[in-house]
């Protein structure tokens, strides 16, 4: 079985730290929202704010990392193979068909992943980030000389922030589930921990195995 190193050390750290922070912020965020009581409002609000700044710091590092390493290119959307991947997840996965997408170091996300992650990075994250900071600095906005910002009601800011949180929650559920769709339920998760992805399920695709291994080694 071929193994390929696709997730670098910082990338893995970033992923898991971000995962922990996002789950924690969903937990505390919906408490601030008034959905339930776990920590108590005051503590939830303080923890949420601390986690927010930590996540912002992490994002700054991650953005820096993406651009300096060129890894940002992993998220350029493509339609190539997209229909095939969609077909795989809707039917092929049940019939034992092979995954139409081959992971390489230069292209580690399938077309659907690219699209989903891009959506998170360019839409949900900024929405949360901007609305969250506006929420935090609402008083300064209200006191500002810029009429558009000064006139923003807290309710609207909170509405956008909450909507973004729901989007993140839906993404999280889907993402966690899809992480179990490797050739074994834990394969993708293992890869995200160790950095090494098992290329193939040898018993099923033994005929093409060596060819693909060579291809990936060459790339």
């Amino acid at each position, binding site marked *: 079985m071929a193994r390929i190193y696709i997730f670098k050390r910082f990338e893995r750290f970033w992923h898991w730290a971000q995962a922990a922070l996002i789950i924690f912020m969903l937990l505390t965020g919906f408490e601030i929202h*008034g959905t339930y009581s776990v920590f108590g409002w005051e503590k939830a*609000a303080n923890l949420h704010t601390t986690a927010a700044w930590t996540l912002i710091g992490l994002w700054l590092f991650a953005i820096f990392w993406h651009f300096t390493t060129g890894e940002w290119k992993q998220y350029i959307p493509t339609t190539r193979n997209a229909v095939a991947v969609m077909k795989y997840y809707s039917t092929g*996965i*049940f019939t034992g068909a092979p995954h139409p997408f081959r992971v390489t170091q230069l292209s580690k996300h399938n077309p659907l992943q690219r699209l989903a992650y891009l959506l998170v990075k360019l839409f949900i994250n900024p929405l949360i980030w901007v609305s969250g900071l506006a929420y935090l600095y609402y008083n300064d906005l209200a006191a500002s000389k810029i009429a558009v910002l000064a006139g923003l*009601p807290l309710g609207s800011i909170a509405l956008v922030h909450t909507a973004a949180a*729901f989007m993140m929650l839906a993404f999280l*559920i889907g993402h966690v589930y899809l992480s179990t769709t490797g050739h074994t339920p834990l394969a993708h998760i293992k890869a995200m921990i160790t950095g090494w992805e098992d290329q193939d399920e040898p018993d099923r695709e033994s005929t093409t195995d060596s060819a693909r291994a060579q291809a990936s080694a060459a790339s």
Partner: protein
Amino acid sequence: MSFPPTGALAKVAIAIIFAASAAAAPAVAAPPSSTADHSKFKELQQNFQSGPEVTKACLSCHTEASKQLHKTEHWKWEYKNAAGQLLGKKNVINNFCTSITTNEAACNSCHIGYGWKDNTFDFTSEVNVDCLVCHDTTGNYKKPAGLAGNVVTKAMELPPGSGNIIKPIDLKKIAQAVGKTSRDTCGACHFYGGGGDGVKHGDMDSSLASPDKALDVHMDALGLNFACATCHMTERHQVPGSRYAPTAQDKGEAHVRGKDYTTNPTTCQSCHGQAPHKKTAKLNDHTDKVACQTCHIPKYARGGVATKMSWDWSTAGKMGPDGKPLTIKDAKGHPTYTAAKGDFVLGENVVPDYMWFNGKVIYTLLSDKVEKSDQPTRINHFEGSAGDGKSLIWPVKIMRGKQAYDPVNKRLAVVHTAGNDDTAFWTNFNWEKAVATGMASVGAPFSGKVDFVTTESTWPITHMVAPAKNSLRCNDCHASGGRLEKVSGIYIPGRASDHASWLETAGWAIAVLTLLGVFGHGLGRVIASKRNK
């Protein structure tokens, strides 16, 4: 070395001595700061036979004092508000004892003058100004109800025929000991508004005469020990901070010595400024919407004295099985019914109501129409809204009442309550007679019929400021069903009624559908993998 134990012992000893002396005579603690010893003044070395005689002596040195007092609300009991309404005790009808007119002899024992027994009182008289009621330091100066603010210099029976003998007071001694106003002198009237200790305000009662820190962080007798005038900084006898001219929102800086300010010195901000929270800066983000009092006065009537929450005059006049006026008391011995006054509901440690307040208070006066269909009649109400830019969320006491009105002329009734004549309600319990006398005295029409309307009055809660550690916590308001549940026009994180229901529905629906989707998909994979094997 034995310093630590000795030091500790000394501390204990000092604490004991201090506690003992404080309990015995708190006034002895500091030497007098005044440069005048009034006992050495010849003018005061005489056996005064009446209050005005003392005032005459005072005025021989303090030549302008009465002229200053004549301009004050304490003297005039009259105030014209920004809306042009003529207010003050002289004019308003409240839902406690209702009004002073025709009851002056009783009520006006709290006037800072001598002899206001009816509407013939001379408001230009300088000797009728009562200096001692505010400047007494002995605690012996008393103005019994029924004497129109006069004092007793010879033993007398009050009320006449009651067998209740009032002892005379020593005006000479009192006059020679005059000093600054104190919690006791202000409290002699202001703690007892509405006819008894703590009755009216809820945040002012006799427990503030010598409060501990938990009751009032500023007036703490063993701590900051503020007098009333520490905040109500008085110049030319004009006491600022009247609730008739409230400052709902103070955006000014903390007052600095040497600078002239025209703003109200009694606001929290006049000392604490705009950003008083040093440790938790986020709290400063609340001051644009929330009055300091809202968080820092978690409850009122906290000092062990109950305040009246409602007063139903309509049930007054019942006699007991013995044929005498009925009195019913609660477990603590506080009356909840008296024949003279009707039914009361008392409250201690009361959570305030909260509302937007912009400083404007509108009253229902004698001249205003009262519709029984429009209940409760608002004796007064606070104006304000989330959006007017002038309002803050304030804690208030809502006093609920049921009181006499004329159903034909649709006016609140002026009731002749106290007096030794045939028409006084407390003499013969006849509403029609009592209201006839009351209305006639103010020249108001009276149909001869008396009915009762429910009323509400609103009182700002601003005293009994608790130490910071006892102030409200976030979740007191940031919650559903919290303290500010009924305050509208503002988004409060954590309050479910502020949620957009479409977003809640859509958000949770998407989350649940996603969850169901992945479960279905996963189940499909499990089944498929079993079949494929």
